């Protein structure tokens, strides 16, 4: 008998007989609801509490703020998406700028060393965001691959205020994740990479970005 069959066989023929499933009452999760203002305030409070930097910007002037921040953080080059509107707008706005625009346009194997050592920052959009926990929701794809939000030391994320959901549960249900089918990788990001493994002292950027900068467009 294969290991698989042996294990399943033992589980199926339980000594104490079949089990019944209790009812799961999700009310304690679904009743968490806030209005638009509260959601934004909560999101900001939660994500700032885990060391993210939040800037509320308008849809018109957000690129100005981005330029300002790039200069302030002395970002020399910026990895941007090629198709997502955030990327298209960023590239157009920074065309004349000193910041070198990079693209994730080949498989990682071709430029691993460069990505790991020479990229200062990246910018991405998000799929949605979560007020309760101050989280960004991303489904990385070929335009905005997985390592784009992980390897560069600074990650700029652009969130529209109307993308805010109350809870992670609401994201899963209201966006129909199950029926849509899960992507290769889905991701929640809440703050920059951190560790407290050395005597409970927080340190940022242990493996991923040291800084997470969130631009909330209202």
């Amino acid at each position, binding site marked *: 008998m294969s290991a*698989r069959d042996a294990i399943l066989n033992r589980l199926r023929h339980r000594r104490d007989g079949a089990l019944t499933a209790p009812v799961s*009452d*999700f009310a304690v999760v679904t009743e968490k609801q806030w209005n638009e203002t509260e959601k934004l305030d909560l999101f900001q409070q939660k994500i700032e509490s885990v060391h993210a930097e939040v800037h509320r910007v308008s849809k018109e002037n957000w690129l100005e703020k981005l330029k300002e921040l790039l200069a302030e953080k002395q970002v020399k080059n910026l990895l941007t998406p090629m198709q997502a509107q955030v990327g298209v707008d960023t590239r157009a706005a920074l065309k004349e700028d000193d910041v070198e625009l990079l693209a994730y346009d080949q498989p*990682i194997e071709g430029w691993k060393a460069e990505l790991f050592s020479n990229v200062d920052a990246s910018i991405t959009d998000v799929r949605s965001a979560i007020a309760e926990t101050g989280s960004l929701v991303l489904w990385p794809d070929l335009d905005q691959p997985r390592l784009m939000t992980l390897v560069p030391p600074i990650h700029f994320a652009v969130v529209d205020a109307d993308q805010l959901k109350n809870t992670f549960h609401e994201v899963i249900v209201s966006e129909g994740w199950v029926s849509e089918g*899960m992507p*290769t990788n*889905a991701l929640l990001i809440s703050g920059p990479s951190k560790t407290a493994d050395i005597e*409970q002292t927080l340190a940022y950027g242990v493996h*991923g970005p040291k800084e997470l900068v969130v631009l909330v467009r209202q």
Partner: protein
Amino acid sequence: MSHNQVVQEFHPRVHEAITNPQIRANFRKAMDGLMDKRQLAFPSDDELQRTRELAAAIRLRALSKLPELLEKLEANLTANGVKVHWAETGDEACKIILDICNEKNAKSVIKGKSMVSEEMELNHYLEEHGIEALESDLGEYIVQLAEETPSHIIMPAIHKNTDQISDLMHEKTGTNKSRDVEYLTAEARQQLRERFEKADVGVSGVNFAVAETGTLCLVENEGNGRLTTTVPPVHIAVTGIEKVVENLEDVAPLLSLLTRSATGQHITTYFNMISSPRKEGELDGPEEVHLVLVDSGRSNIYQDDELLDTLRCIRCGACMNHCPVYTRIGGHAYGYTYPGPIGKILMPHLAGLDDAKDLPSASSLCGACGEVCPVKIPIPKLLVRLREESVAGDHNHDNSVVKGRGAKRKGMEPLIWKGWAKMHKHGGLYRTGTGLATVFRGLVPSNLGAWTNCRTAPKLAKTTLHQQMKARSQNNAASQKKDGGDQ
């Protein structure tokens, strides 16, 4: 226990830990901090209790359908392009992972944190077969540099303070001696980044495996888990068979309780959900993803209605953070992969009660663990059950599934309890015995062994409550009679 675990006696290890002021101080400080943080993460007791109800129900529902859900998980993962393997034992799981590595001609494995891989001693196994396995979680990395094992399931290096880690990194990796945690962390980042670039295989654990969608969920703060599961061309996830949940929505409340219970964080930096290998046209992610499902005694625990609750565990570590015993002795003294209360109810199954015989009794049954458990595992009750198993003390459990049942039933103890029962089930015998004890109370020695090492001996009363109450009712009767006689 697998091949190379050296199981020493429990008491000498306890002695070593408890008399080490550094260990005592490191754990006390860490546990105090973790308890405070958890408390702050649950401002509403009502929300906490209702979420615990929900989480316990979700885990029980998953267990109630375990074989079906495992098959569904396998089917969905397979359809997504993930290869699923099954292992009856830790050694089998190690072998499966080695075979995948060999097939890929892999020489270097980078690891994300995985307690199951600790349980099966994967690093050791791979190294014996010429493959280097490097831990990438900072705490695990430190523990590996020190050639130790984790002392906590969430914070592996919690037994060390900054100076100790600085010295260790200096000695093993040539960093400067420093108390600057930022510096030490940045150095580790650099050392590990080079290894990530070159690793042939990434091995990770799994926090929740979602049957409905075929999704492997990983909870982490550092990003090493994401690197492990994204950068190397092959990703092997390894997990116990009990980690499956039915629906994707089930993970939301479990995640919320897991991070708040563990470290008081409302969420971790990353929640990473992996459903397939790199798809056509995608630019990163592994070309191959494997899942190794490990039984290793879990299907045995599954047989028993009461013991089953052990399998609800989501490995948050809150039970150890709140345990007065763990706080005093730290994780290594237990001598097993999983320390603390959860270790005391899990290890006797994985290692057998004959091996883990001292674990169930090493608890004052204070109940702090059960009170904070996010999935409401009745840990104290299970400790009592395992005490019963270890002395085979209940004939109703004679057909028990527990390995090593009755391992501690020896010497005079069973006879003493039989004598105790005889005396205490007859009120008359008891009163005679206790009455005699009070008469000879002067003869009780002031040295009562272990008790009087740190306490004075208790003093028997001159008269028992039974005697006082009897005297009282006789007096009352007499005075009533007298009252009656006077009328």
